[in-house]
């Protein structure tokens, strides 16, 4: 017997601008295994800050010198972008993947609501004691305190409060300790799977890092993300256990209606309609003649 399928459901707070998606085992009202949050446009009410990781070349032919210098420049480069935040319980790679792909299908389905640019922030490295070398080696010199204190005092937008204290001019990373430099745009081992997942989904490091821990910001042009570009709406044929069973898995998401639902399940195209198993249709709460957004997935 296969394990019960994973089901993504929407848990957005009523009236919230942010989409909140949760993944659980479909069979029971069990624990949340992974979550995705999708914001349509960030930094428009309270500014958001990132460091741009730049490069300056110091060269002198007369001194025989050629050096590449990395710089950090504080800015609001991603203002107005859409943001995806993913969280998953350890070892729940499939749930995390469903949360990610479900969010991307929802984004594709409501494309006009979201921005041309999509980003996802990843956590920065921590030492064994949970301390961020980036915070300790850079931020702390401008804000003497712990991130947790700043978060407690500043609330939801505490990073903007920290940014107000940070250097406004480029910081040459040569002035920072080796452990700080090594932490720039790196993720801790436990976030490597998440990073790979996002990269596989089409997001890339674009030389921006988070201001508090130096974690990388992955970004993409929304319309080039495979799950956005490659998914489309289908009309549902009547569910058919025999026709759909054993065919390749698609990512399926309810196209219309109130709350988003998504899962990965077998599907097959027949007469320009998509055929699902009755169980899948039931989980998606869709009937024949209704629309589903579906993505056959990436090659490889």
């Amino acid at each position, binding site marked *: 017997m296969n394990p019960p399928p994973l089901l993504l459901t929407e848990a957005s707070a009523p009236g919230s601008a942010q989409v909140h998606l949760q993944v659980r085992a479909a069979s029971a009202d069990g624990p949340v295994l992974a979550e995705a949050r999708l914001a349509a446009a960030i930094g428009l009410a309270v500014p958001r800050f990132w460091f741009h990781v730049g490069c300056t070349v110091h060269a002198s032919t007369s001194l025989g010198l050629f050096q590449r210098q990395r710089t950090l420049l504080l800015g609001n480069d991603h203002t107005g972008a859409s943001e995806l935040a993913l969280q998953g319980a350890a070892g729940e790679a499939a749930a995390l993947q469903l949360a990610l792909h479900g969010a991307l299908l929802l984004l594709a389905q409501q494309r006009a609501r979201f921005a041309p640019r999509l980003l996802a922030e990843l956590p920065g490295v921590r030492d064994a004691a949970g301390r961020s070398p980036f915070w300790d080696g850079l931020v702390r010199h401008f804000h003497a305190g712990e991130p947790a204190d700043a978060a407690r*005092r500043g609330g939801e937008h505490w990073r903007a409060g920290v940014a107000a204290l940070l250097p406004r*001019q480029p*910081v040459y990373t040569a002035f920072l300790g080796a452990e700080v430099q090594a932490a720039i745009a790196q993720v801790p081992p436990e976030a490597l799977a998440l990073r790979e997942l996002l990269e596989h989904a089409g997001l890339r490091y674009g030389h921006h890092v988070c201001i508090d821990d130096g974690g990388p910001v992955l970004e993409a042009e929304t319309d080039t993300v495979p799950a956005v570009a490659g998914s489309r709406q289908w009309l549902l044929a009547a569910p058919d256990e025999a026709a759909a069973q054993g065919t390749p898995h698609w990512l399926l998401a309810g196209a219309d209606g109130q709350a988003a639902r998504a899962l990965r399940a077998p599907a097959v195209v027949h007469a320009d309609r998509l055929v699902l198993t009755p169980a899948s249709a039931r989980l998606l709460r869709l009937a024949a003649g209704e629309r589903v957004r579906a993505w056959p997935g990436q090659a490889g």
Partner: protein
Amino acid sequence: MPTPPDTDYLFRAARPDDLDAFERIAAVSAVGITTLPEDRAQLADRLARSSAAFASNDDASGEEIHLFVVEDGEGRVVGTSGIAARAGFHERFFSYRNEMLVHTSPLLGTSNRIHTLHLCHDLTGVTLLTSFYIAPEHAGTLAPQLLSRARLLFIAAFAERFSDRIAAEYPGLADDNGRCPFWDAVGRRFFDMDYPQVERISGGRHKAFIAELLPQAPVYVPLLPEQAQWAIGQLHPVSELPFAILQDEGFEADTYVDVFDGGPVAEARLAALRTVAGARRCAWHAADEPAAGGHWQLVAVPERGDFRAALVRGEPAAGTLGLPAATAQRLRLAADTPLHAAPLALAGTEPEETA
């Protein structure tokens, strides 16, 4: 060797035949006067340029250097000093300017003062005091006072040839092996060289080359190691005496530091300097050697091609200063030679002190 009485020292323009003395001094003053090259040919060139500057009747261009010496009663050169008419004439003149920024975060309810260093050319065109050296055995006399301050009378007397802003660079902290905490924390990150190596190549025209490769963005001082932070504006002990003389004159060193070693840059408005403010034209008359204990007076013969100065006790009265025969002879005075005189503003004395 006992030092001569302070009245025996003579300040005068350097001459090409002072080359041996300059070479000797450049060799012993390894740290501190990077403006004196150790190379004899280069020194000869400096002296030639200086002589030309003293003799020239052309309008000043700004590239002039004027070198001076102090000789003891026997005519031996025991110290040197100089003036560069305009900083940044041949190449860009770099300094770090100290700035304080206050960052506030209303959201977190905190604010923070941040010390930054900004690479700048603010001192371009400023007249620089250079090349100060006094033989150690004369450091405890008034010779260094004469050597440093008589330059200011020269500048004041020929003010059209100089800037009204005067500055002097002083060496920053470094240990005996040449390890320089400021360099190690700042410059070294951009040039993988030890400080002595940099000093060697920066003696010539390379100083601006190197400075051009420093970060153009401000240096955020809190990011530097503590030792380097502490070294900013700190004076190398070798220059305590000349630095103290300029401080007594009214120079301040809060704004600028050297881009390489973080040493202080003293600067002032010419007119505000105590020697310049206190300078008066006067005539002279023969007088007996005055009693010890009177106030010291700098006396200069304001001839541009043959500037000379000495120290005497006494004060001008009714526009004339009494000078003993020995001083008049040393300064080669004729009966009607006009003088400039200024009270010697020693530490702890008031500039306008009157008897």
